[in-house]
């Protein structure tokens, strides 16, 4: 079937949700059930069509696979180019899985305007997949911004009290970063004379003169740092998370934040390696701040979702830390940690959603002793908490350990970075367990909680896959490492060449300043 | 022979006076008249230049400007009448429904 051969499968994956959305346009609004079914159907279809990618993906083969390339806007030289490497694969699968789960999770949670809700979710899905698969700057940017709109509505229409504020805040924050990125993209074009990401990636590390690299690095930095979000650009996150409906939070935490780190990995690091080497220190400091600061702020939260939101600030701090360690372990760890964060934080939000559906409050003080009325829930919650605080044999540990191991390797202050990171791990245990204790332990104080029903089948269905994934990554992450090896290798070869030959790592001070002079200014 | 510059200054004088009228009078009709003054100044320019170049183009232009002035005056006065019918005033600073 032509739709599924290697040249078109990515398009199929990309547009299946969109097709669903368009189809749903024609179903009358009154028929909410139909929309529910269609939404779930296409969410699941989206997952199914993405599975062949896993089977056909050749790990260890460098470069992009499933590449599809057509002219799009010849007049400005923009192409419709899709393709994924190991990194892309991980992200795409994460997106499809979480997407399906998010859609399923809103079965009973969403009681108004089902039609638009599911249409928007599917649109969002397409947007995110587009970001992870597009290999053309313009295409990438288009998807990057398209995806904002559905998210705005998900928060703004189906959110809770301060939803409008949160929604517009989210929109403006993200937009502020991305518009600057647009200029950076144009600047790249005028120096590389192409929008093709592959060409720029395959260029030598001093392809852009150093001075330009610095500018471009910061140009892209804001877009990604706001998405990640790195302190101090994070304040949109707690609001957005808190106000968004469960599915929204799941997608937001699970996938949207990854776009930032993905951007760092796909653009900042490999395209501006010299600049990256220069600013590594700053980036790592920012990450460390995010880790510890986020964790500290978590402790004082009274609102579960806010707490989890700040915890994702802390966790994403680990991801950026790993990225800017610029070592194989750091990078692969970071990517795995992104996956983990998607899984465990997504699951946490789902769990909060379960509570919210029953009690319509997220205040921690409202709960307590829940493990009596809902034992299964308690068990699942415990597992998720553990995976989130990095308990071995669960996914979190693999990521955090690898990241910290990679960070430890950083010349000069390696041990210090690692030590700070470990502090973050401790704090993580502290706030997560404290939350767990306050919600689950003790005897039921609030009469409203006495007869809460335990998790129903659908909720199981949403959470079980995540938990299985968590265990799988925790116990047998080897396939992941194998898939990620090639892209990580490329990245490292770019940022510090000759790493894989057994020479001591070149200190980043040796960034060739004359290199700027050597490369002729291309325009 | 009078240098063309003098005509320029004359037209400028009329122009300025017209602007003053436009900016200061409250009566809309008088504002319109002041605008006529400005157009008149323009005409002086044109005719002077046409004399200077010895070609009649400028005068043609002047004729068209007079035409336009006539049209504007007609429409303008019509609108003023309509306005007056609804608002019982022709004072410029009393039309302040539309602001901010």
């Amino acid at each position, binding site marked *: 079937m032509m739709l599924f051969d290697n040249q078109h499968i990515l398009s199929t994956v990309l547009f299946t949700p969109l097709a669903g959305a368009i189809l749903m346009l024609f179903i009358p609004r009154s028929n909410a059930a139909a929309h529910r079914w269609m939404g779930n159907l296409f969410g699941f279809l989206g997952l199914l069509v993405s599975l062949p990618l896993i089977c056909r993906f050749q790990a260890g083969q460098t470069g992009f696979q499933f590449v599809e390339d057509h002219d799009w806007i010849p007049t400005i030289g923009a192409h419709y180019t899709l393709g994924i490497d190991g990194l892309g694969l991980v992200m795409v699968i994460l997106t499809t899985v979480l997407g399906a789960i998010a859609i399923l999770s809103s079965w009973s949670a969403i009681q108004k305007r089902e039609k638009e809700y599911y249409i928007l979710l599917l649109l969002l899905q397409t947007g995110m997949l587009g970001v992870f698969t597009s290999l053309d700057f313009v295409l990438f940017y288009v998807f990057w911004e398209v995806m904002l709109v559905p998210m705005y509505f998900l928060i703004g229409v189906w959110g809770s009290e301060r939803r409008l504020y949160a929604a517009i805040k989210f929109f403006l924050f993200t937009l502020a970063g991305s518009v600057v990125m647009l200029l950076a993209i144009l600047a790249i074009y005028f120096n590389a004379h192409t929008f093709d990401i592959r060409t720029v990636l395959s260029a030598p590390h001093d392809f852009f003169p150093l001075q330009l690299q610095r500018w471009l690095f910061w140009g892209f930095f804001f877009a990604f740092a706001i998405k990640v979000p790195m302190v101090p650009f994070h304040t949109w996150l707690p609001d957005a998370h808190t106000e968004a409906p469960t599915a929204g939070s799941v997608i937001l935490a699970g996938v949207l934040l990854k776009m930032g780190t993905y951007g760092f990995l796909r653009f900042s690091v490999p395209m501006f390696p010299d600049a990256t080497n220069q600013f590594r220190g700053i980036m790592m400091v920012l990450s460390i701040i995010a880790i510890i600061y986020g964790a500290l702020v978590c402790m004082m939260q009274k609102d579960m979702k806010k707490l989890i939101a700040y915890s994702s600030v802390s966790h994403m701090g680990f991801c950026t830390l790993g990225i800017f360690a610029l070592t194989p372990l750091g990078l692969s760890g970071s990517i795995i940690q992104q996956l983990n964060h998607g899984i465990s934080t997504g699951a946490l939000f789902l769990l909060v959603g379960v509570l919210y559906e029953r009690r319509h409050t997220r205040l921690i003080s409202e709960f307590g002793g829940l493990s009596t009325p809902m034992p299964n829930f308690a068990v699942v919650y415990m597992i998720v908490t553990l995976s989130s605080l990095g308990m071995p044999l669960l996914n979190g540990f693999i990521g955090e350990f690898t990241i910290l191991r990679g960070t430890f390797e950083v010349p000069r202050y390696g041990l210090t970075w690692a030590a700070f990171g470990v502090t973050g791990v401790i704090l993580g245990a502290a706030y997560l367990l404290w939350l767990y204790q306050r919600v689950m332990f003790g005897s039921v104080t609030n009469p409203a909680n006495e007869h809460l029903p335990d998790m129903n089948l659908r909720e199981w269905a949403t959470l079980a896959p995540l938990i299985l994934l968590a265990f799988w990554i925790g116990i047998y992450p080897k396939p992941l490492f194998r898939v990620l090896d090639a892209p990580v290798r490329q990245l490292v070869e770019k940022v510090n060449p000759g790493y894989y030959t057994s020479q001591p790592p070149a200190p980043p001070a040796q960034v060739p300043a004359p290199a700027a002079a050597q490369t002729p200014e291309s325009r | 022979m*009078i*240098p*063309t*510059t003098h*005509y*320029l*200054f*004359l037209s*400028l*004088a*009329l*122009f*300025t*006076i*017209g*602007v*003053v009228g436009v*900016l*200061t*009078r*409250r*009566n809309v*009709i*008088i504002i319109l*008249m*002041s605008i*006529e*003054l400005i157009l*008149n100044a323009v005409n002086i320019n044109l*005719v002077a230049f*046409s*004399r*200077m*170049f*010895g*070609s*009649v*183009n400028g*005068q*043609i232009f002047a*004729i*068209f400007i*007079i*035409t336009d002035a*006539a*049209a504007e*005056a*007609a*429409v303008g*006065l*019509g*609108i*003023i*009448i*309509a306005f007056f*019918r609804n608002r019982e005033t*022709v*004072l*410029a*600073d009393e039309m302040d429904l539309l602001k901010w």
Partner: protein
Amino acid sequence: MANGLLPQIVFYFFAALAVVSAILVVVSRSAIHSAIFLITSLLATAGIYLQLEAEFLFVVQIILYVGGIMVLFVFVIMLVNLDVSLHQLQFNRQWLVATVLAIVLGIHFSLPLWLDRGVVNLPPPSAATMQPNSEMIGQALFQNYMLPFEIASILLLVAMIGAVVMAKRRI
């Protein structure tokens, strides 16, 4: 009267008349007076046209402007008679500022011209005579400027429609 003293006298007389009556247009209390002074000013301008050997325009000015437009003005002034407004303020609040600024504007226009009259180097009035004026204008109007002439007809049609639509109580 190609050159000599007379043209200058004529010019400066008419110029002075135009300017003075223009000022009176702006300052006089009643709209009627302004209208009359405007007529004076326009007539003075017509005189200047004559002095510039633009006879046709001289006629047009008198007939069309003075005879047509100004009558219209006076008519409207009668229609919306404003004995009331005679007693109220004739100048708006910003009049002082406005006057100053207008004069500044005038200076901005004229001073550079004055300083640079060397640089501006307008050629002296050409000896080329534009006689017979009306015929030449006719030629130009119906050959080179036929198109604008046609458009002008539409413009006037529009103006007519507009005047009707606006002034008539019901269409």
